């Protein structure tokens, strides 16, 4: 993400002066793919001592929603593509940063309205509009956030366009400015400085711009559309690609000549077998884009009219075959998963992290597991596809994390199936709820008893702080052990034993009888047994069970009932 800084003196291979709808589509797809790739790193920037999955995932989910309809579109008008993009971003906006992102895309669409193709100055104007709209919807713009990054990249775009730069150079300036703005966010926002990070939303926006810029430079293909799983028709689920007739070679070039007739050239290329053909420009300079099985013929024809520049030929067949093979393999694995639960009437879907916990949940006959939890909240789409994958018509979801509950609740509006979310905030609550599940009872009763069962469980989690911070009255230094009770930070300290004792005390451990200790992937059985022995010494009436949870981040998770 923050790889090499851009060297201004570097010579460029490409100059692009005009973009059409398809070019815009591909650059946005590249931006979305680049963000998707880095979302975990952005999640890690959230200001809280435990990495708390949201900004990166939220922005990526918003982007994925934005591109879901344009990904397969062959629309050539930039204006139409941008409008579609803005509309779908609005519908899929998630989180604060996602809403801001959707508003900037709306600004982009307003700026490109009525333009079939656009040039560098057009893009600068559109970014200006994006900035204006972004700032309009907030009464107290906080500097040092995504808004600052939006503003400074728009300013860079304006300067670059005034200098007469082409699209590639303009985007390079924009990315440079965005990176600098991100780097300055800790100076503008004290909470960021306190936590020692840059702003996650700003970084996310910058990452999208970087993806677009990489595409314009020709470094990244439009990345075989990463999120086709959100498409409505079930056949196209999980990015299944069927080889369509249009694949061959993608040919793109600029044609310089005099007295060029756009209409005639377009018609001739179509007659020669070109698919998705776009010819745009004026009588002196044209951009030609087409898909054809015979690129040679098209180039010969081009040469007969004038001189060719920036010729770019890509083999689409190869790309799409690779992608189809990958998605087929993924699909087969998924098929396997779903055969198991064919017979159940009511299905359960749980969000689980950690190999040991997965085993526990499987042992309790959960119908489907969605991997996720702290730092990697599953998207609504992932939850939805798990719900759709089980055979039963009635599905109970166990989110097992406070941050997932809201997404889980959204699922019921998106599926035909009857969905109930039992609001479990921790894995232990999820286990308690699942233990309360009764195959004989009907759906409504199960929802009630499971929610009830989950409520009686107290959970404490022990982990280490990934960075220094001050949350509420609790001062945490990087590397400190911290105790989190039912999702709230309660205790911090450097001695793990003391932190554990203190945490258990706070959850009034003496009022409970059975304690289950799940130890994480970085802890061995002996260490866990030792901890259990010491707790037993201090609280002799407790029954303590030690289980290998295999969870990441949390060294120990205690559940008390």
């Amino acid at each position, binding site marked *: 993400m923050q790889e090499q800084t851009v060297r201004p003196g570097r010579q460029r291979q490409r100059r692009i002066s005009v973009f059409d709808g398809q070019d815009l589509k591909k650059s946005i797809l590249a931006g979305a793919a680049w963000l998707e790739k880095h979302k975990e790193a952005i999640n890690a920037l959230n200001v809280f001592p435990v990495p708390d999955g949201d900004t990166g995932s939220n922005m990526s989910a918003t982007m994925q929603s934005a591109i879901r309809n344009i990904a397969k579109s062959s629309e050539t008008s930039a204006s139409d593509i941008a409008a579609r993009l803005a509309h779908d971003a*609005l519908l899929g906006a998630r*989180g*604060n940063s*996602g809403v801001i992102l*959707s*508003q900037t895309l709306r600004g982009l669409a307003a700026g490109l309205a009525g333009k079939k193709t656009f040039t560098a100055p057009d893009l600068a104007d559109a970014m200006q509009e994006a900035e204006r709209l972004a700032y*309009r919807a907030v009464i107290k713009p906080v500097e040092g956030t995504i808004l600052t990054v939006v503003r400074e990249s728009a300013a860079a775009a304006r300067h670059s366009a005034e200098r007469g730069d082409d699209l590639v150079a303009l985007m390079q300036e924009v990315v440079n400015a965005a990176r600098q703005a991100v780097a300055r966010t800790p100076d503008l926002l004290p909470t960021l400085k306190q936590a020692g990070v840059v702003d996650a939303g700003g970084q996310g926006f910058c990452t999208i711009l970087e993806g677009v810029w990489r595409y314009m430079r020709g470094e990244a293909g439009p990345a075989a559309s990463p999120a086709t799983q959100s498409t409505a028709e079930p056949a196209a689920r999980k990015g299944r690609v069927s080889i369509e007739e249009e694949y061959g070679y993608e040919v793109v070039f600029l044609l310089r000549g005099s007295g060029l007739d756009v209409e005639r050239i377009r018609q001739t290329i179509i007659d020669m077998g070109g698919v998705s053909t776009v010819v745009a420009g004026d009588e002196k300079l044209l951009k030609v884009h087409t898909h054809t099985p015979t690129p040679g013929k098209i180039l010969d024809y081009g040469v007969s009219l004038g001189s060719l520049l920036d010729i770019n030929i890509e083999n689409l067949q190869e790309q799409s075959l690779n992608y189809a093979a990958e998605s087929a393999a993924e699909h087969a694995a998924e098929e396997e998963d779903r055969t198991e639960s064919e017979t159940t009437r009511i299905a359960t879907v749980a969000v689980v992290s950690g190999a040991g916990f997965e085993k526990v949940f499987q042992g309790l006959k959960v119908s489907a597991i969605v991997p996720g939890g702290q730092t990697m909240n599953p998207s609504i789409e992932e939850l939805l596809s798990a719900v759709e994958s089980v055979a039963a018509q009635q599905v109970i979801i166990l989110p097992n994390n406070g941050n997932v509950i809201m997404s889980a609740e959204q699922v019921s509006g998106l599926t035909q199936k009857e969905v109930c979310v039992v609001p479990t905030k921790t894995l232990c609550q999820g286990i308690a709820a699942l233990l309360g599940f009764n195959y004989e009872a009907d759906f409504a009763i199960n929802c009630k008893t499971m929610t009830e069962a989950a409520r009686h469980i107290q959970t404490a989690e022990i982990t280490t702080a990934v960075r220094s911070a001050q949350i*509420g009255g609790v001062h945490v230094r990087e590397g400190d052990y911290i105790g989190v009770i039912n999702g709230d930070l309660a205790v911090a300290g450097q001695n793990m034993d003391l932190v554990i004792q203190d945490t258990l005390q706070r959850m009034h451990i003496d009022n409970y009888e059975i304690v289950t200790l799940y130890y994480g992937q970085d802890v061995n059985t002996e260490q866990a047994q030792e901890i259990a022995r010491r707790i037993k010494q201090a609280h002799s009436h407790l029954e303590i069970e030690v289980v290998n949870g295999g969870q990441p981040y949390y060294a120990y998770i205690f559940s008390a009932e």
Partner: protein
Amino acid sequence: MHTPKTSAIHLEHGSRPPGKIEVLPNAIHTITVQATSECYGVLGIAAPRLRGGEAVLLTGEQSNQGVRVHIIDDQLIIDVYVVLEYGLRISEIAHNIMSSVKFSIERMLGIPVVQVNVNVQGLMHGPVAQGKSEAKNQR
């Protein structure tokens, strides 16, 4: 206006002298207003009552009137009245307000917030919605 009771929080910090801290609802109002105003898409805090069918934007000191606090068993239920920007996803902004208010109050006061109810009193266009009319939209 209604006068809710003060709420008390008992600090369970072992090493500190025992004592009681009382928080007046006014403080909770202020934190809520602050947290809500920083949410993206919020154009203002509004009065709970409409005037002539339209939302009344509150400014400055008045803003606290756009927040109602109920205290039940030392737990808080908060109602907040807002005006949002037109053209954004309202449900998502409302969710953002809920989590932001809950987070701020729990972090600053340590009192559990069980509910945040967001009442959208109206939507507003920024001044140059369709690229025309620079006139300020005053409501």
